[in-house]
């Protein structure tokens, strides 16, 4: 038997202190299998040891929240006895090492989190961050990640309807791949992971276990360095066809009454799934590892417990119901094995060849999981950029340049590789503010979006955290949806550094403030720390995935200009900033002046809420014909995006506008179009909140945006906008 040396302990990522705690709990030295179990259960990834304290400060409840954080996914009531079940999860490190498989298995994992709860997945989204477009690795990473997300989602048959992509050199060595799944479940058929019933069978279903990704969970919790290459064999390969079978088989079984509890095997596989189920139920579990379906010969208990083979689930069944379940899994061609049962001992006991190979107390191990209150420092405030110090680039140059810049250019090349229409309910395809999927068989819809502006978060974590939530809320609102709840994916650097920890703390504060002010609680999420390479941290990226409901699809809004001669109205400008405009951290400043600096635009949550409620009211009353929120790139970019979507020009009547007025990124604003007959009434009603800035018009080859006697042809804007990404990708 392997003796546990300090070296082995270190390899398992446990500190001396943590190891001492292991000794205290067991009253003896652990064997290797036991040490492996401790190491994954106490890894950052599984234990949230650095983040727990701050996650607890997020608002998580509302009358419509059925299940907040703490389960595989969050659950909200969406009316008609239905629920939306959703979560987002990162697969950053695996995707950097093997982009195709890393991203593919990321999608597989988040799908399982959602259908584990009894929901049929109806949409996938993905939030991606890559390095500089001209970095030698970027192209390979984009093509692999996108193909992997598509390869998995397309095969499984869940439409990939939305997401976001940013580029920044600080992601060169550490890309972000955050995948989100939204599912729909009947309100009376939600499944949880809490085990119950001493003696009940514990059942393994899905793919066989191989030596995949052993120590993946530990890898996701350690900073990257040059010898990460060595860790390569831990990459897992996804099998989307098996996932599809697993979805169908699980949902078929869930329609019967035989499942007591169910949990997917994600990070730390069999260990964390069995552990969590028993722990939540206050029970013990005994597993006969010989019965685990194995893909390879000569596997050890250690490997079986730590393997991260994909497409597997663990269930507790009602006693005697094994044959019902087995018949369904066999019908779908999947492995099925009763591998153990629940006990009242509160211990996890593993046997192998008739011998006990691990015997651990469950509660003490879970309760003693380390929880750190890491030292943190706030980010020093950045100075406000004075627009007077920023050069004026003529808008006719600035607009095409921005529309073809990395963070604003069209993502068509990406979403055309995703089947975004399968299931026949995609009523708003990628390219708008929020994707909208019809609730099957109804005239209602789910709207969803993912958002975060990392450059804002880096400059001011609190404000950036607020902004991420506000932008998600705004995107849902712009589609005419009632925003209901969010999932978050907190991507940060090494939390052992006080400034990084300070970013995390600040972002949590901003998130919490915005979620509270907007009645937009957090129902699930994921934390990914140690996103650093050679000591260089990624920009802090708390990605927000928002979900809302549209009660009548006839009253959904899109960004597309609909008809010529309609008034273009901006809603939400504050009287004091109407003519000025916030350039700090704007894309104008970065892309046209080469300056990435300043304080980000402030987010006034009260104003945000008021404006959003007004705009949603107008959409729901059928008074606007198109709606788009103003975000990256500012007002003129928003108008240009609407024009491109509708293939129709715009004649703007702003008088001698400054770059700050056109491209400033002030928050809480929307652009809408209003049929001519409704303009006067609307302006009178909204007062200073609304401003008529021009009219739609011009189609075909002559379509253009005109302003102050100058014009830019839509065809030129389109070429810049659509050409950039295919250009980078060489296709």
């Amino acid at each position, binding site marked *: 038997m392997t003796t546990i040396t300090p070296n082995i302990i270190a390899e398992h990522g446990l500190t001396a202190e943590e190891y001492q705690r292991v000794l205290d709990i067991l009253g003896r030295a652990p064997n290797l299998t036991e040490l492996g179990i401790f190491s994954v259960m106490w890894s950052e990834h599984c234990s949230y040891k650095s983040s727990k304290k701050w996650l607890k400060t997020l608002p998580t409840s509302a009358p419509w929240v059925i299940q907040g954080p703490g389960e595989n996914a969050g659950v909200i009531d969406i009316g008609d006895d239905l629920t939306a079940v959703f979560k987002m999860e990162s697969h950053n490190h695996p995707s950097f090492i093997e982009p195709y498989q890393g991203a593919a298995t990321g999608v597989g994992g988040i799908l399982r989190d959602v259908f584990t709860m009894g929901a049929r997945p109806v949409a996938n989204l993905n939030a991606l961050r890559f390095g500089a477009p001209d970095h030698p690795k970027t192209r390979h990473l984009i093509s692999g990640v996108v193909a992997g997300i598509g390869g998995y989602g397309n095969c499984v048959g869940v439409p990939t309807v939305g997401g976001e992509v940013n580029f920044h050199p600080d992601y060169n060595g550490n890309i972000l791949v955050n995948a989100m799944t939204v599912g729909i479940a009947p309100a009376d058929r939600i499944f949880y992971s809490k085990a119950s019933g001493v003696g009940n069978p514990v059942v393994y279903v899905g793919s066989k276990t*191989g*030596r995949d990704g052993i120590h993946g969970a530990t890898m996701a919790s350690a900073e990257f360095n040059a010898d990460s290459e060595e860790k390569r064999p831990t*990459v897992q390969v996804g099998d989307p066809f098996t996932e599809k079978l697993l979805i169908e088989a699980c949902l078929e079984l869930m329609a019967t009454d035989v499942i007591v509890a169910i949990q997917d095997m994600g990070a730390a596989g069999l260990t964390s799934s069995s552990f969590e189920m028993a722990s939540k139920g206050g029970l013990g579990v005994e597993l006969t590892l010989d019965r685990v379906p194995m893909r390879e010969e000569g596997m050890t208990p250690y490997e079986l417990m730590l393997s991260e083979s994909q497409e597997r689930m663990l269930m507790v069944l009602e006693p005697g119901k094994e044959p019902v379940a087995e018949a369904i899994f066999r019908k779908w061609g999947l492995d099925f094995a009763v591998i153990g049962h629940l006990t009242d001992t509160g211990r996890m006991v593993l046997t192998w060849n008739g011998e006990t190979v691990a015997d651990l107390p469950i509660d003490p191990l879970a309760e003693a999981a380390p929880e750190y209150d890491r030292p943190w420092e706030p980010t020093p405030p950045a100075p406000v950029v004075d627009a007077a110090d920023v050069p004026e680039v003529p808008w006719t140059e600035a607009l095409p340049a921005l529309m073809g810049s990395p963070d604003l250019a069209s993502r068509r090349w990406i979403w055309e590789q995703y089947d975004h229409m399968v299931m026949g309910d995609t009523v708003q395809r990628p390219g708008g503010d929020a994707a909208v999927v019809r609730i099957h068989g109804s005239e209602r819809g789910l709207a969803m979006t993912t958002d975060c502006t990392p450059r804002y978060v880096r400059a001011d974590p609190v404000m950036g955290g607020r902004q991420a939530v506000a932008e998600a809320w705004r995107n849902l609102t712009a589609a005419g949806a009632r925003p209901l709840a969010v999932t978050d994916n907190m991507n940060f650097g090494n939390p052992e550094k006080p400034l990084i920890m300070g970013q995390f703390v600040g972002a949590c504060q901003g998130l919490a403030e915005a979620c509270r002010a907007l009645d937009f609680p957090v129902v699930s999420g994921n934390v990914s720390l140690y996103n650093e390479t050679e000591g260089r941290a990624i920009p802090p990226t708390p990605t927000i995935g928002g979900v809302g409901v549209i009660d009548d699809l006839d009253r959904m809004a899109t960004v597309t200009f609909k008809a010529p001669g309609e008034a273009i109205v901006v809603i939400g400008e504050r009287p004091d900033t109407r003519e000025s405009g916030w350039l700090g951290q704007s894309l104008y400043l970065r892309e046209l002046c080469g300056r990435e600096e300043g304080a980000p635009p402030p987010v006034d949550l009260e104003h945000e809420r008021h404006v959003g409620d007004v705009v949603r009211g107008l959409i729901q009353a059928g008074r606007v014909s198109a709606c788009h929120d103003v975000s990256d790139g500012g007002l003129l970019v928003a108008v240009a995006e609407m024009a491109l979507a509708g293939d129709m020009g715009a004649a703007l009547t702003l008088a001698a506008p400054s770059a700050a007025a056109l491209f400033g990124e002030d928050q809480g604003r929307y652009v809408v179009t209003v049929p001519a007959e409704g303009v006067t009434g609307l302006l009178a009603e909204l007062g200073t909140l609304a401003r008529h800035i021009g009219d739609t018009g011009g189609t075909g080859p002559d379509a253009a945006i005109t302003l102050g006697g100058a014009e830019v042809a839509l065809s030129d804007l389109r070429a810049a906008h659509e050409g950039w990404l295919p250009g980078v990708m060489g296709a």
Partner: protein
Amino acid sequence: MKARVHVTLKPGVLDPQGKAIANALHSLGFDGVKEARQGKVIDLDLDDTDAEAARARVDDMCRQLLANTVIETYRIEVDP
């Protein structure tokens, strides 16, 4: 000069293709198939005239493009 590159999954790496092929062969009644694994072959037609130089160049191509060395291994045959 012709070169042939065989790219196969490393042992232990899940091969969904191979698994599916084995299943399909079983359902067609070919019971005696214990395992199937799928790989790629890439045939290259090269300008080179020197076999050793060609092999070195193809090795470079494999590492840079033809094989995904994270999960695959490769083998080169040069046919003078």
